[in-house]
């Protein structure tokens, strides 16, 4: 039997990458800044986003959110309390959001068009591994880490932190009670993603939010 080698040199996630490139072009054309929030379950993505949406709305900015979970629309209902349009994506067992899901949920989203938005937030499924492989066309990928999770999380999940554009430490209000070693956490994040912007926040007290909102404003101007 003779055999033959056929070269493919093809990205396995090419289909997702192509869809994401299409989304990115439509975000740019519409002038909306899109952020993809990724963390473990329980880090406080929803609380952080809830506060962000409220603060941005209070400043007269047009915001919306897509929120991914395996099941339930609990997060969408929580976020909708901010007054911003929110749409739930149920992945039914899939551990991450992909570009196709985003495209489908942007289409036919009643009352929401990309052109009518300043910011679109995508809250990914709580998972520190799989979401890092799937580009959603976002401009900024935000990795979140709470003070309860351990300072070595960035070292344990280097891919996610390395592919992030910004890092947010959540629940700073209980840092002391958790014996959170702030210096070590910052060092570890920097070891994996040198020079990344890090925000130390509390959705409860509002600590760090001013800095985060200033960053969002800068990023929208293309200087973030």
């Amino acid at each position: 039997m003779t055999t033959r080698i056929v070269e493919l040199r093809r990205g396995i996630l090419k289909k997702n990458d192509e869809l994401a490139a299409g989304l990115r072009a439509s975000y740019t054309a519409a002038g909306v800044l899109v952020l993809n929030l990724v963390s473990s379950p329980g880090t406080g993505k929803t609380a952080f986003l809830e506060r962000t949406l409220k603060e941005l709305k209070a400043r007269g900015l047009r915001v919306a959110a897509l929120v991914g979970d395996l099941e339930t629309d609990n997060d969408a209902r929580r976020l909708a309390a901010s007054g911003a349009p929110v749409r739930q994506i149920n992945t039914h067992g899939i551990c991450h959001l992909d570009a196709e899901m985003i495209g489908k949920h942007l289409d036919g989203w009643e009352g929401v068009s990309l052109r009518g938005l300043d910011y679109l937030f995508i809250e990914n499924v709580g998972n520190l591994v799989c979401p890092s492989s799937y580009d959603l066309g976002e401009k900024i990928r935000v990795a979140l880490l709470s003070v309860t999770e351990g300072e070595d999380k960035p070292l344990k999940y280097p891919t996610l932190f390395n592919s992030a554009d910004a890092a947010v430490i959540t629940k700073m209000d209980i840092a002391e009670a958790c014996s959170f070693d702030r210096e070590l956490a910052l060092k570890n994040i920097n070891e994996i993603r040198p020079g990344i912007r890090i925000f130390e926040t509390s959705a409860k007290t509002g600590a760090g939010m001013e800095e985060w909102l200033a960053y969002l404003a800068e990023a929208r101007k293309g200087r973030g």
Partner: protein
Amino acid sequence: MHELSIVSSIVETVTETLAGLPDAQKGARVLEVRLRVGALASVIPESLEFCWGIASEGTPLEGSRLVVNLLTVVMHCESCGQDVELEGVQSFRCPRCGNPCSDMRQGRELEIDSIEIEDGEEKQ
């Protein structure tokens, strides 16, 4: 874990490639599929191999071998002015000068490199 969806996507891509081959090779059996997987690709080779049998069943890829070529992380070090290979993924510093590096040149690959097929031109 998203290895099953990744493996299914490999099967789909290879099947499409086979359909695009010259007629004589169209029905060729696939013997081997070779991947290039970066150390930061977020997939575990063992899990890919584990899913391979299930995902390839009933396709022209059934019975083929999946070969995963793991790639290390290569960064461009500004200070040294050259590409440097990292020993692991726990520190993104240049192993020569110790300065932090953020310009990645290799490490996130998740690609089908090539496939080996039976040559269908063989005469009976």
